[in-house]
């Protein structure tokens, strides 16, 4: 039995997280967003603390946008990916 390779997707962070990661855009492999983030954390360990809680959940007030569609918080990590998908991490903004 053969396993098909994981999709390659684009992960993009807000510019000010360059201070944490040293990059704002990378290509990573993952069948789900959770796997794609794990790949990013392997490459850049400090990023885990800034994107997730100790429980592994995505931090509150973080938006995850997949191909221009905002995902509900409780569905982010399990959302399945296809080759060429674009994941944008953003912060919730309010005020005026």
């Amino acid at each position: 039995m053969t396993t098909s390779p994981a999709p390659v997707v684009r992960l993009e962070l807000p510019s000010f997280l360059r201070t944490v990661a040293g990059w704002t855009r990378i290509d990573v492999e993952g069948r789900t967003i959770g796997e794609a983030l794990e790949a990013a954390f392997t490459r850049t360990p400090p990023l885990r603390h800034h994107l997730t809680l100790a429980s592994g959940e995505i931090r509150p007030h973080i938006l995850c946008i997949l191909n221009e569609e905002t995902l509900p918080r409780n569905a982010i990590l399990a959302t399945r990916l296809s080759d060429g998908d674009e994941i944008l991490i953003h912060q919730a903004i309010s005020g005026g």
Partner: protein
Amino acid sequence: MADKVILSVGTKRGLFLLESNGRRQKWAIHGPFMKGWTVHHAVIDTRGTPRLHVAAENYSFAANTFSGSVSGDKLKPAERPPAAPELNPKAKKFAKQYGLDMTKRVWLIEPGPAKEKKVLYCGTAPAGLFRSEDVGKSWEPVPSINEHRTRKDWDPGAGGQSLHSIQIDPHDANRMYVAISAAGSFRTDDGGQRWKPINTSVAKYVGAPKEETVGTCVHKLRVHPTEPGRLFQQNHVGVYRSNDHGDTWNRIDKGLPYDFGFGLALNPNDPDVCYVIPLEPEGYAFRATDGALSVYRSGKNGGKWTKLSKGLPQKNAHVSVLRQAMSNDSMKPCGVYFGTGGGHVFVSADEGDSWSVAAEYLPPVYSVTAAVV
């Protein structure tokens, strides 16, 4: 004369570095660095090759420490951040009841003892002390203070429950002080194995717990760099001086317009001198007295305050100065510095006699520290 004096200015929106020569008359402004981050505190460690350390937070992406060269543009986060402890149950109930801030933060970062050049300490909210032995790459909690027997009686203040002052005794590397709002000051004499509350004769705040050794709201604690045993604290209730490592305190605020304030600076060339900025506490506005921004300098034995206002705005300056936003340098004569909620940084190169503006219209200033490099 020193080649350079650098002020690390933490603001609500980023970090700025203000640079001058030893005359401290003209200041170049570099930054903002750490765009998008709230910088609660930043300090340049001068024990070896100067190195910049920053305590920062983003509303969505959490708090951490960042370290790098003094250029400010290549800072790296801690790989193992300080994990601030939870509020004690009584404090959590109190904070919820009054809508107080419970956000986890790193409040300040400080170099360790002179001979342990890789050691740093940081303080968090909720109150916790953390130690790094690898120049800020990883942090470990200090349980002897974080799990102190009095913790159950530590209260939160309007700005949260924070460990906001860390002072290494310059004469004894095993002696160290921390201060916590709102609990009080603590001292270790054995390198952090045991901590003694040092709040005897310091006034308690209204509603303080019955626990005898805590229940004081210290706003800033500083150790004098040359006079053994000499400490100062600006408290929610008064300004105090100690001559015996904090075992006893003398209240020295008689003559000030208000006993309330946050910031505190010292003069390394004169152990009698501290600098404070009294603030109106009414309505929790914490503004400069009657719109006149003035620094006060203590004299002999801590009394005889001198009002220092030359060069400072004396009309309609309804700004505040926070506890991390005031400091001094190590030169002779010493420089004194502070930043305001209105985004101005004021400097004095003559021990407070006269003041000028080094920067204006920055975001609200949260911290100012000075390094001679």
